[in-house]
């Protein structure tokens, strides 16, 4: 018999343990589509372990800001994972308006990454930071408007009760709204995680890098924190999307967790397929995509407010 409290505690540990697996599922999908065998599924864990054993190299031009970046970022995203409800259970922490906190914890993560990148004084990292900020400034309204539409539909301002309100029954009478929100969230998911049509996570071609360029100067444990943090970010944003698209609350905690995790794995596979089948868009086209996402969530909200 698991009490509700220990259950949400378990759901806090789950992303901490399994988030890197999503990265490797995406990579594996890309490899399979490209006809390669791909790396073993535990590769991200090996990478993280390797990085954690190493020492960090710091440039003389950097200050404490550079050192604080990865730590604060990881802390912010871990707090964010406590706010999202996973697999039908309530989140570890929930209160009215926690969706705003959620959005701004991710904002804090981005802010410290950007400011650490700027602290290196490299013009190259500054370029990446500028791109990242431009795109996320457009992705953030899409996220907030999408969440606002769901909040309006379910009549609640807390992520936990919002997602508990999303059921098959709500889908049948608000399908267009949820479909629009899901579309917008998918674009936000791809943008925020530096995924394909917006950013290429594997690229090391200098002029096209966005997220990768900002973390170039980090090494050892710092880099491990950043990689782990982005895996967690992938997890939390994925949970937001999966919770909406797979609205199954059977009541059985284990079954719900398995369904939720299967949904996340499915999302990772979809992301892998998107990455394999699309090219990175020209930098000037990306804002159009993001404004499109904003329009989708605005439309959802307008449909809801009517």
């Amino acid at each position, binding site marked *: 018999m698991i009490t509700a409290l220990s259950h949400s505690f378990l759901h806090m540990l789950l992303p901490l343990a399994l988030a890197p697996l999503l990265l490797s599922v995406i990579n594996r999908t890309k490899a399979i589509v490209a006809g390669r065998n791909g790396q073993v599924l535990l590769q991200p864990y090996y990478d993280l372990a390797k990085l954690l054993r190493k020492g960090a190299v710091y440039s003389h031009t950097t200050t404490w800001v550079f050192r604080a970046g990865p730590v604060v970022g990881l802390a912010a995203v871990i707090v964010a994972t406590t706010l999202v409800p996973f697999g039908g259970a309530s989140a570890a922490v929930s209160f009215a308006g926690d969706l705003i906190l959620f959005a701004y914890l991710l904002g804090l993560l981005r802010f410290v990454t950007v400011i650490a990148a700027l602290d290196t004084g490299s013009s190259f990292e500054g370029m990446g930071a500028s791109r990242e900020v431009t795109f996320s400034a457009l992705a953030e309204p899409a996220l907030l408007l999408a969440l606002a539409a769901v909040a309006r539909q379910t009549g609640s301002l807390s992520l936990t009760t919002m997602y508990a309100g999303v059921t098959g029954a709500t889908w049948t009478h608000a*399908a267009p709204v949820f479909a629009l929100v899901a579309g917008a969230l998918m674009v936000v998911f791809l943008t925020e995680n530096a995924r394909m049509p917006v950013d290429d996570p594997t690229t090391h071609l200098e002029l096209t890098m966005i997220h990768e360029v900002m973390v170039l100067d980090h090494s050892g444990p710092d880099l491990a924190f950043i990689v782990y943090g982005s895996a967690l970010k992938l997890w939390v944003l994925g949970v937001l999307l999966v919770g909406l698209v797979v609205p199954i609350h059977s009541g059985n905690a284990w079954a719900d967790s398995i369904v939720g995790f299967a949904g996340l794995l499915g999302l990772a596979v979809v992301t892998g397929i998107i990455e394999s089948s699309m090219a990175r868009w020209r930098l000037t086209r990306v804002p159009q995509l993001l404004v499109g996402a904003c*329009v989708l969530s605005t439309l959802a909200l307008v449909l809801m407010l009517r």
Partner: protein
Amino acid sequence: MTGWVDTALVLLTLTSLLLLGSSRLTRCIRIVAFQGVVLGVLTVTARPTELSLRILMLAAAIVGLKGVTFPWLLSRVLRDAAVRREVDPVVGYIGSLLLGTLMLAVSFWLSARLPLPMPAISGLLVPVALFTTLAGLFLIVTRRTALTQVLAYLVLENGIYVFGVGVVQGTPMLVELGVLLDVFVVVFVMGIAIFHINREFDHIDTDQLTALKDWTA
């Protein structure tokens, strides 16, 4: 929000928004074709209780004309004109999308205070019809190539049709077909006109037509 009607209406809105943000002309044509098909679906699903042969024929005519014939006709024109994208619209694509959202909000606001003699089949119908019409009008004004303007005219007409199918009950078949024929003639004539403009000037940019004048040697 229930059923097919609302889904069709949301799809109509989405296609109009997509059109506001697309630059490739082949894609624009496909979007408008899809909109025509959605319109056919809307015609059938609008009043499922009084489904008759008349409605089915009308829907088939709409899908046939707006979903197949016009796109085919316009693709041919496009191939002859050898233009691939709208290069320089008066209002940029992102600006168009944002203004589109604004138009959407205005349509909802306007329809909330529009007294109708009879209730529409769905609360979404009037705002979507208004929005589609506004979007068509906006596109006619802000796009430069003649082809996009024809597409925009079609979108405008679609908006008016949506209003008709959802609010006015029992429009005579003859009127509907007459309107469709009118649209057909317009697109046909515009197709020929685009072809001639293109042959004469090597482009289909209508903005430069304003500089036309008699040649006084």
